[in-house]
């Protein structure tokens, strides 16, 4: 069994660290300590961490912090970062105003482009 899949695997207790207050996700202001504690709460995948804490869910969508988050989670789990699947990137690649996005087609004219 992949080590990440058994959610009862003993990863030891959460031990506070001096740099736990360091902000890792700048958009959503999530600290290293919050990420480490989330792993001990059972969030073993990067997708779960993001859904639980909002890391990488802000304006930059994780383009700044995803590598850092991966390293922190891997170390906490005691696995290689390569074992952790990256999160899913989604449209749009940059934040986009509703009025612009809406112009992708005109109402009722999708067949006439």
């Amino acid at each position: 069994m992949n080590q990440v899949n058994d959610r009862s695997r003993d990863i030891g207790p959460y031990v506070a660290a001096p740099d736990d207050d360091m902000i890792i996700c700048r958009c959503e202001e999530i600290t290293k300590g919050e990420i480490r504690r989330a792993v001990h709460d059972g969030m073993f995948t990067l997708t779960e961490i993001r859904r639980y804490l909002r890391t990488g869910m802000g304006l930059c969508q994780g383009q700044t912090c995803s590598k850092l988050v991966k390293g922190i989670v891997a170390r906490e789990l005691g696995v290689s970062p390569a074992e952790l699947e990256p999160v899913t990137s989604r449209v749009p690649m940059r934040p986009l105003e509703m009025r612009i996005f809406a112009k992708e087609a005109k109402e009722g004219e999708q067949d006439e482009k």
Partner: protein
Amino acid sequence: MKNNAEVVIIGGGVIGCATAYYLAKNGTSVIVLEGSDHIGNGGSSRNGGGVRQSGRDPRELPLAMYGIKNLWPTLSEELEVDCEYHQDGNLRLGKTEKHRQILQGLADKASACGLDVRMIDGAEVRRINPYLTEEVTVASWCPTDGHANPLTTTLGFYKMARRMGVRFITEEPVKELRMIKGKVRQVITPNNIYEGEQILVAAGYHSRDILGTVGIDVPMTQSLLEALVTEAEPHMFDQMLGTADADFYGHQSKHGSFVFGGSSGFEGCNKDNGTPITNSITAPAICRGIMKYFPDLADAKIVRTWAGWSDKSADGVPVLGKVEEVPGLVVACAFTGHGFGISPAVGDQLCKLMLTGKTDVDIAPLHYNRFKAKI
């Protein structure tokens, strides 16, 4: 590690996690098997967060009302996570006479079940939500509806269940159920065999294949629904919103972002490449729908779109309860996009059903055996 427990739950979504939580709280040993890599990876993490009673079918309305009365108000404290539950009402908006008729029909049905839903005019709509365009002339208003955060709620149930000793295993897709001495007993995955006194199948659309291995069929299809989220905006309103035409639905989250879902009309035949992918025409259609009701949101920036499969039952309400033909088997699937709001109630009631054989809410109308030919 032991591969047997009193209850084996197939499906680590919000239904499986909630049921595991309530069972563990009652001292029952539980194993949860999740087919994908992540807990709560289906509709549980991809829905719009509605915690509604209005617009619900009378057969499932009692579950929605039970959860809102008894479970949602204290869920954040119980799960030690911010579920972001807001009970600030649901507005279902309309602009035309046809819309009024649709809304009146839904309101009448809900009122008949004892729910406080009433029709209000445009002026009252804008007293509740001043950002709505003048074109909105009518709405149904249910003051006890609301919304919550599906991500923290689902993972909150998981966290607490795990803390109480529930064993969760991900990437463990179930291939088969096996009967022993007339009772369902074994759960077969590619590499393991699990055993339980009772087996709960709560695996969304996959439930159909799994139930098929013991000769049970639940008539359902699936459709790919899409949603989007904006950047954080200043606080505007706390209600849950929908429209008579179902152009879009959504709310403003605690974080400030607006979460809106909607449709392009192609939901029943969208594709998937392993990840539920968004269709290029859908998010723009949702944006057009929103802007027709909230012109002020035209400059809000979309930061993300996503998609998720919904398991749709043939008659629009979930399939829930014991499968008498297969002793030991319990089913909870085909939630038809209504699963998140009722998930605490479903978990709580399934727990009671499995431990005592009884429920507080009448779930008989949701029985798997209700599907009959039309003539």
